[in-house]
């Protein structure tokens, strides 16, 4: 087990290099960010040149990448165009997005798995159908609509929440945004759990357990659920990164200056230090989450062993 983890950690290095290089090249391929800094006015060549020098944009892409990675290893993630160090942006954005992600993940696990188990055990019943309809609504109506509607009614009409999250982004402020963010994933989790549960109810060991006369609840939780969770856990593990990086819409609506928002701003302004810096950390989070999921396999399924 220890060796397995160590091996996986070492494997992260090439993945890390590969992913960051890919991102770097992509941001580079977007073109020259400098002329946009001048707004609707044509750039003045000398100032533009000075700015390119400041951000190393005048060098070939591989050299920019090496310079950048060299700086990262010393903890210097560069400066955003507004003059703020990228580390300062990350210091603010990641904790916020992390809290938002955890909130969403908790909703997914609580609501998604519960609904999934219930519908999986009662396939074809009316409850199953109602959940399906809800799922469809969530998929077909964009997050934007659900988010702004929830914000308007809960925030303005009923006054239960503050429509905009404060810069602290306290956990209680993140409940509604977290729920909105989790909705699409909830649909996946519910459907995945439902299928998995439905499949496993017919498995021999469940029949055996039932035949042994074990109480229904115990069979469901200990045997059925545990064995049904592998695809769900895999999904949730992969979702960690998506929830942190892909919350662009939710973060915008609820005024959360998280990772998704900063990343999107960075992309729009073609600011490679911001984009690459954020993605570097995101890739690390992806990798750790995936490692965790792989380790969970062994916990959930005793037949899986890591040497």
């Amino acid at each position: 087990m220890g060796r397995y983890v160590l091996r996986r950690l070492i494997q992260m290095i090439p993945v890390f290099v590969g992913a960051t290089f890919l991102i770097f090249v992509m941001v580079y391929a977007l073109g020259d960010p400098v002329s946009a800094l001048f707004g609707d006015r044509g750039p003045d060549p000398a100032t533009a040149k000075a700015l390119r020098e400041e951000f190393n944009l005048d060098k070939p892409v591989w050299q920019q990448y090496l310079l950048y990675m060299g700086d990262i290893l010393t903890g210097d993630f560069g400066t955003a165009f507004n003059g703020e160090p990228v580390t300062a942006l990350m210091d603010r954005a990641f904790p916020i997005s992390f809290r938002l992600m955890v909130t969403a993940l908790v909703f997914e696990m609580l609501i998604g798995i519960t609904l999934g188990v219930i519908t999986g055990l009662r396939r074809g019943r009316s409850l199953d159908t109602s959940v399906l309809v809800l799922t469809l609504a969530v998929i077909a109506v964009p997050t934007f609509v659900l988010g702004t509607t929830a914000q308007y009614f809960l925030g303005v009409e009923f006054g239960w929440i503050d429509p905009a999250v404060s810069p602290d982004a306290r956990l209680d402020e993140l409940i509604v945004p977290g729920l909105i963010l989790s909705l699409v994933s909830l649909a996946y989790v519910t459907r995945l759990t439902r299928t998995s549960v439905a499949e496993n109810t017919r498995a021999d060991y469940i029949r055996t357990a039932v035949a042994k006369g074990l109480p229904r609840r115990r069979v469901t939780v200990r045997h059925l659920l545990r064995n049904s969770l592998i695809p769900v856990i895999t999904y949730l593990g992969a979702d960690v990164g998506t929830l942190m990086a892909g919350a662009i819409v939710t973060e915008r609506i609820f005024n959360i200056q998280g990772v998704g928002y900063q990343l999107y701003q960075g992309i729009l302004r073609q600011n490679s230090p911001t984009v690459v810096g954020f993605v570097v950390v995101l890739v690390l989070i992806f990798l750790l989450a995936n490692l965790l999921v792989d380790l969970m396999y062994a916990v959930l399924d005793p037949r899986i062993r890591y040497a």
Partner: protein
Amino acid sequence: MPDQEQPPPLGAQEDAATRAVTVGAATPEPDAARSLWSDAWHDLRRNPVFLVSALLIVFLVLIALWPGLIASQDPQRCQLGRSLQGPSSGHWFGFDTQGCDVYTRTVHGARASIAVGVCATLGVALLGAVVGGLAGFLGGFWDTLLSRLTDVFFGIPMVLGAIVFLSMITLSGIWPVVLVIAALGWPQIARIARGSVITVARNDYVQAARALGAGNTRMLLRHITPNAVAPVIVMATIMLGTFIALEATLSYLGVGLRPPTVSWGVDISAASDGMQFRNAPHILLYPAAALSVTVLAFIMLGDAVRDALDPKLR
């Protein structure tokens, strides 16, 4: 790896446990495909869920191919003077912000939306299932290599990738969007497929088959795929819907379908822009409803196919 000379076994109908043994016995069977896939087809034809969803899909495809059948107007004919007018006789769904007929646009939007959804889902599912499935099945070095490759692609934010690709690709039509979604969407499925294959591969019947000398190809096609495919199908059917919606987001960001292509996504995002639906819900309702019905049809189809493929449910 391929072992064509050894004819595949019969007996996919049996219960999983007995099946492993039959498999090992390797009874010759001339028409291998029949045992699993044709049986599934046999089941499907009797499944009302399948029939309803198939009918729906046929209907949607017909509309996508010949929208003129039920909507005779030009979706591009828009008059700002009629902006946001509600439903009326002759214009059942009302007009959108630009004064275009919502009914006409909803009907004409089917083609691009369904094409993007289906093609992107197929691409993602195939790529993801192959890479993830192989990683889980082969294990060891290959697992490491393929999994880490998946990780690399996982790191790329969809929006960034889309903006980069789509501002460089100058293809017209739906293909740039399909390509981008397929290129960046597969890691999710790959992870699921790998997890699923790992679980299945540890099952007794698979172990038994392996112990009895079944080759890799047959192991994959006969024993593992049918049992591991369920999560992939479930994911894929939902993805279809989210991809149609994703196309909307991409269009909204200016990197999706190029005008004058009409799609549900384009209309949904236009309606969502700045909460215009607050005053005129009909501009959001109809394209969103069309999207829901399509996703419903595919989810039902996916469920039915999955059930038919699952030997344990027989």
